């Protein structure tokens, strides 16, 4: 039986074949199995989308309708224990526009076995501190400039430092790594920075003073908040702020399940196919959280469109629309005059291959029954007629 089913591997989807394997009784004869599969294949062929069907239009309507519902009756933000999460229409727009800067970047960090059980709270706490970004500003009480010799004095908060687990030496190391051209000196409760160059000025010192406030002393850049959460027998760390590349390097982290809601980061770290999957997951998360129901195929189509070019392109005039080959199609979306003038300047040709441009020039559109066309072979002229 198994070998007959495997004959259909090219014709039927894997999920259906698995169902056949489970549900066809063991004793069924070969001819009967073949009959079942043949019937299923016929049904499957009937259920497929016809060539020329305007799937994009259907997807747009199917996502758009619940979208309008969403604007009307939802909370656009949900609080997950002190942490803000963008939800609802703003989040959908954020994903579809392919934005690089998110309103609320967030990560879900899964942990490896011994840490995930959460039996040793001490470990979790330690890990959380290792992930959360600590800036110089967080562990110091005062920044001051000595006007006489333009040195900067940073008063350190020793108690806070003990809590986080950094020493003065480590602080000085971190500063010297991220700030060039300064001598750093330890002075009991504070550290003193002095410019190496002779031409120091008050302005320069002031600028540096503001700059060093943001220096990362410990943790991962960009992670603003950490929050361990119990999820089905294991602890997961949810963070505000996102930095996938660096978090995956941590030893305690289960790198293969850890994700972020920043699609651009996923594309950089895991590739375009992972980004496509992330787009689908993220849109689905929003739609599900609102109790709406949109078929996965529509969302997959949108995600595929955003990812065809090898990088994530938003559905905006700078993204997907700018890729269209037709001038008129581009002009019909946004900023028409810009597109038409540019096309005229370089002498672009529009072959009227797609929908919008054919609507504009009042021709049948190549969709559905408009897709097939007749081609006629002209009768060949005999040499005499020439």
């Amino acid at each position, binding site marked *: 039986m198994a070998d007959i089913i495997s004959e259909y591997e090219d014709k039927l989807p*894997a*999920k259906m074949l698995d169902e056949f394997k489970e549900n066809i009784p063991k004793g069924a004869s070969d001819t009967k199995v073949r009959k079942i599969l043949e019937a299923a294949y016929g049904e499957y062929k009937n259920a497929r989308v016809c060539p020329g069907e305007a799937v994009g239009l259907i997807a747009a309507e199917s996502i758009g309708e619940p979208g309008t519902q969403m604007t009307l009756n939802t909370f656009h933000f949900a609080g997950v224990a002190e942490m803000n999460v963008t939800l609802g229409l703003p989040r959908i727009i954020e994903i579809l526009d392919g934005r690089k800067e998110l309103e609320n970047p967030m990560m879900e960090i899964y942990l490896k076995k011994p840490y995930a059980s959460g039996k040793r709270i001490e470990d979790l706490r330690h890990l959380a501190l290792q992930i959360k970004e600590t800036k110089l500003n967080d562990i110091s009480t005062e920044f001051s400039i000595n006007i006489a010799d333009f040195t900067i004095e940073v008063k350190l908060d020793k108690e806070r430092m003990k809590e986080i687990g950094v020493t003065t030496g480590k602080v000085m190391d971190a500063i010297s790594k991220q700030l060039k051209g300064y001598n750093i000196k330890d002075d009991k409760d504070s550290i003193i920075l002095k410019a190496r160059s002779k031409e120091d000025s008050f302005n320069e010192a002031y600028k540096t003073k503001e700059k060093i406030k943001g220096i990362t002393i410990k943790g991962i850049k960009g992670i603003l908040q950490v929050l361990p959460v119990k999820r089905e027998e294991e602890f997961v760390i949810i963070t505000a702020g996102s930095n996938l590349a660096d978090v995956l390097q941590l030893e305690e982290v289960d790198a293969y399940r850890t994700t972020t809601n920043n699609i651009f980061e996923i594309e950089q770290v*895991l590739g375009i196919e992972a980004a496509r999957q992330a787009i689908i997951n993220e849109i689905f998360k929003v739609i599900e959280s609102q109790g709406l129901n949109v078929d996965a195929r529509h969302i997959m189509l949108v995600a595929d469109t955003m990812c065809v070019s090898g990088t994530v392109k938003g559905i905006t005039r700078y993204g997907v629309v700018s890729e269209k080959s037709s001038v008129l199609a581009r002009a019909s979306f946004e900023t028409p005059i810009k597109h038409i003038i540019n096309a005229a300047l370089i002498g672009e040709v529009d072959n009227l291959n797609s929908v919008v441009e054919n609507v504009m020039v009042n021709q049948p559109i190549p969709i559905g029954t408009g897709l097939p066309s007749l081609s006629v072979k002209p009768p060949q002229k005999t040499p005499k007629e020439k």
Partner: protein
Amino acid sequence: MKKPKFKVDKHILTPKHSKLGEREKAQLLEKYHVTSKELPKILKADSAIKELDAKTGDVIKIVRKSPTAGESVFYRAVSDV
């Protein structure tokens, strides 16, 4: 920081990528009546295909997990930019 032992293709979001051989590639293009330029693209620098040593014009086969079909096969052509 230690060098990463992290493998991109093992992440839950990344589907399996593999490079098509010359013959398979020709068969595929023949089957769909396309040239490799008309296929969806994947960047040469994409992190998921770094270890495949793919050149421009190669076709990458991607086996995705799909909620509707169980598994679905997708092809992308390697492109420069």
